[in-house]
């Protein structure tokens, strides 16, 4: 609910033509934060069903995370290295999976993306023409007998994730909530107008 006041100004800017038109976000999820963790990673499958290149250049999760960044985990010679990414680019028809643990990147062909679209919940599908795109990030609890063992669904995919710093009072991170959601939003810029103002700048 806290997300609404911050998201509203963003939706009012939806007349901007470049927008997130065509961006579909599927299967977003975030791991339940272990005690003491200050930084968490969220994952999703991103698909561009539009006809032009999409550049995702900002992300936020109002009400739940103080700051959201786009990161890539690189594995080189057995070492994990976290790299900040300014943008994520999605060509028309392309799908990019952001998945945990530095697993190899998987790119899907447009045909595969269309097959996925049939079972998509499409929270911000093609035609929305919104400057930003909000979606719900699901957490799954796979072991009901162990209330402290919050696990998650595992997606095959790439090495990119969205790192977020949780607020101390984040309501979705209490261990007695079995299945919860956390709001998140992404902003897109057209390549010719990049860099776009950040979400926080717009909402302020």
């Amino acid at each position, binding site marked *: 609910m806290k997300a609404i006041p911050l998201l509203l100004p963003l939706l009012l800017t939806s007349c901007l033509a470049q927008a997130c038109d065509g961006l579909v976000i599927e299967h977003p999820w975030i791991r339940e934060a272990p*005690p003491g963790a200050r930084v968490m990673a969220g994952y999703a499958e991103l698909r561009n069903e539009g006809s032009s290149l999409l550049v995702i250049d900002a992300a936020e999760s109002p009400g739940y995370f103080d700051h959201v960044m786009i990161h890539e985990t690189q594995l080189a010679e057995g070492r994990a290295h976290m790299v900040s990414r300014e943008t994520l680019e999605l060509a028309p028809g392309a799908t990019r999976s952001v998945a945990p643990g*530095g697993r190899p990147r998987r790119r899907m062909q447009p045909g595969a993306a269309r097959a996925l679209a049939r079972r998509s919940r499409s929270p911000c599908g093609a035609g929305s023409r919104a400057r930003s795109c909000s979606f719900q990030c699901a957490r799954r609890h796979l072991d009901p007998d162990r209330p402290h063992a919050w696990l998650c669904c595992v997606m095959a995919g790439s090495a990119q994730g969205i790192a977020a710093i949780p607020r101390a009072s984040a309501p979705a991170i209490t261990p007695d909530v079995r299945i919860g959601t956390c709001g998140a939003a992404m902003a897109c810029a057209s390549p010719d107008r990049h860099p776009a103002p950040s979400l926080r700048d717009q909402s302020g």
Partner: protein
Amino acid sequence: MVSTVRTAPVLLVIIAVLAFALGIHFARKTAPESTAPVEGMLWPNPPRLEAFMLDGADGASITEAALAGKWTLLFFGFTHCPDVCPTTLSTLREVTDLLKDNPDFAQNGQVLFVSVDPARDTPAGLARYVGHFDRGFRAATAPPARLSAFTSQLGILHTQVKLGSGQDYTVDHTASVLLIGPGLERLAVFSAPHEASDLAARIRQIIQFLQD
């Protein structure tokens, strides 16, 4: 006399061939395997873990004695790690579940998470952190000098990397999972990314191989 002279070289050749064949036969039968039977396994001469001392999550020291007689899966990370560490600990939880039907590992297997960020990770905080993934997991860290003595003997690399212009930092670190045997042998190094079923299968193979 002539006959003896003619047959002698033939006999010598036959004896030489037989000796050669027997030699190969016995060499194959007695020589140790020269190649690793499982990918990631350090064999036939696994190095032995040297003495070390870490600060355990319960306040007690963890030394090599805590690993003796155990199959230990060792992983290095830090609690501010957003991706690889929680992912690997989740995977290790799956691995230990998959190995519950292996009597050796079920009775004597353990997971030890070692923080390479002692400035931010206290032993008590580490206990809560790993307990989130599995209450049976152990955790430890140590001040830089003792930590480096431990990580360097295992070939574990860890480096602080500054984030932005502030004081915040992340830690680049080796993401491999190590298997230490009951005799403190460094049996295997499994490189990331990790898949639970693959890891469990390789650990089974190693335990079986060492019992044969």
